[in-house]
C-alpha cells in the first residue's frame, strides 16, 4: 500500500470518527434542552408561568404538556386546571374543555381570571385555522 493510500484511509476513518463524535453533543444538547424544560416546571408556580408563556406564544401543545407535568405532581392546582381547560378550547377540544370546566368552581378563582378563561371557550371557533397534513 502506498503512503497516499494510507493518507486516504486514515483521512476517511478520521472523518467518520470525528463526525460520529460531533453528532453526540447534538443529542446530548437536545436531552439537556428537555432537562431545562422539566427544571423550568419543577415547581408548580414556575410550571404555570411557563405554560402561560408557551400558550401566549401559541405553543399550545407545549403548554398542555407543561400543565400535565404540573398537574401530575400537584393535581389540585386550580389555576393549572383552569388554564388547561381554556387551552383545550383553543385547540378546539370543546367537549374536553367542558368536562374540565365541570370539575371547577368559579368561586375558587378571581372573577377576571374565570371570566377570561370562559371567554376563550365562548368565542366561536373560526373555520379551520389549524394546519392540515
Amino acid at each position, binding site marked *: 500500500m502506498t503512503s497516499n493510500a494510507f493518507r486516504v484511509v486514515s483521512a476517511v476513518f478520521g472523518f467518520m470518527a470525528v463526525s460520529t463524535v460531533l453528532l453526540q453533543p447534538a443529542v446530548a444538547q437536545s436531552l439537556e434542552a428537555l432537562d431545562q424544560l422539566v427544571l423550568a416546571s419543577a415547581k408548580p408556580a414556575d410550571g404555570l408561568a411557563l405554560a402561560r408563556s408557551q400558550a401566549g406564544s401559541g405553543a399550545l401543545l407545549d403548554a398542555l*404538556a407543561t400543565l400535565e407535568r404540573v398537574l401530575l405532581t400537584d393535581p389540585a392546582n386550580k389555576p393549572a386546571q383552569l388554564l388547561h381547560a381554556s387551552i383545550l378550547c383553543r385547540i378546539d377540544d370543546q367537549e374536553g374543555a367542558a368536562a374540565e370546566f365541570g370539575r371547577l368552581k368559579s368561586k375558587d378563582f378571581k372573577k377576571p381570571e374565570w371570566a377570561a378563561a370562559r371567554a376563550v*371557550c365562548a368565542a366561536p371557533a*373560526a373555520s379551520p385555522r389549524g*394546519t392540515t*397534513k
Partner: protein
Amino acid sequence: MKMPEKKTSTRYLKRGLLALGAASTMLSWGIANAQSSAAQIGIAAAVVGQVKLSNAQSPKPKAISVRQRIALADLIQTGKNGRLQVLLLDRSTFTIGPNSVLRIDRFVYDPSRGRTSGASVLRGSFRFMSGQPNRGNSATISSPIATIGIRGTILEGVVGEGARDIAKNENRAVREADADKKTATLVVLRGPGPGTEPGAEIGSASVTSGGVTVELTEPMQAVYVPRAGAAPIGPFRISPGGLSGLHDQVFPDQGGGGLGKALLGGALRVLPGVINGKGKRNTGGSAPGPNDQPGVPVKP
C-alpha cells in the same frame, strides 16, 4: 537515491498506521458512545408514585426518577399509584396512568424532516401528545391487539380491564361486545379539532385490528377493539361518563373519582357556553345516537 526513498516510504507507512490506529480508536469510541446515547430518546419528565424501568441490560425493574434518560426498548411500568410523563426529543409526550406498561420501540427524529415513532402500550391508560408540528411526523402506538396510526394529535386510550369498564356504559354495540379483559383497547381522539388556533396540527388517527381500519377525524371520536382479531367498533362519540372515566384512569387524582364522574354527567348541560354550537353532543352512552357508527370499515 534508493535508500532515502525507502526511508520515506517507511516513514509514511508508520505515519499511516499511527493515523489509522488513532482514527480507529476514535471511531470505536464514537460508535460506542453513539450506541449508548443515540438510543436515548427522551427523559422522564414527571414521575409520581411507583414507576419502574427495565431493559435488556437491566432485566430487573428499577425505580426511575425525574429527568432519567429513556432509551429505545426500555420497558416502563407504573404501580397502582404510579404516573409518568415521558418527554421525547421532538417534545412529544407520553403520559401513562397507574398500572400501565409502556415501551418506545422506534424513534427517528430529524428536526428538519420530522419524527417517526412507534410505541407499545401493553396495559393501562395513556395520553399521547404530538410535539413540534412537522409534515414529516408519523407515529404509531400498538396495543396487544390493535395498531393506532397518529397524525399530529392528542390521543388517549386504555388497554385492558379499564377499557372494558368504560365500554360497559357506551353504546350498545360497544357495551355488548365480547371483550377480553386483558387486551380490550379503547382509543379516543382529543384533538386538535378543525377550529384549532394556528400552530397546532389538526389531529386524526386510524385504528387497525382484524384487517379493518377505522379513521378518527374529530375530537371525542372513539374506537373500541374488544378482543384480538375483532374489527374495531366505531367511530362513536365517547360519552361524558366515558370521557370522565378515561381521564380518571390517566390522571386519577384530578377528578375526584366517582364524584368527578357524577359531576361530568351533567357538565355539558350546565356549561352550554362552552360548546360552541357544533352540535357534537354525544348520546350519553346509553343508546346508539346519530353519530354512532359501529363497525365502519375504511380500508378493508
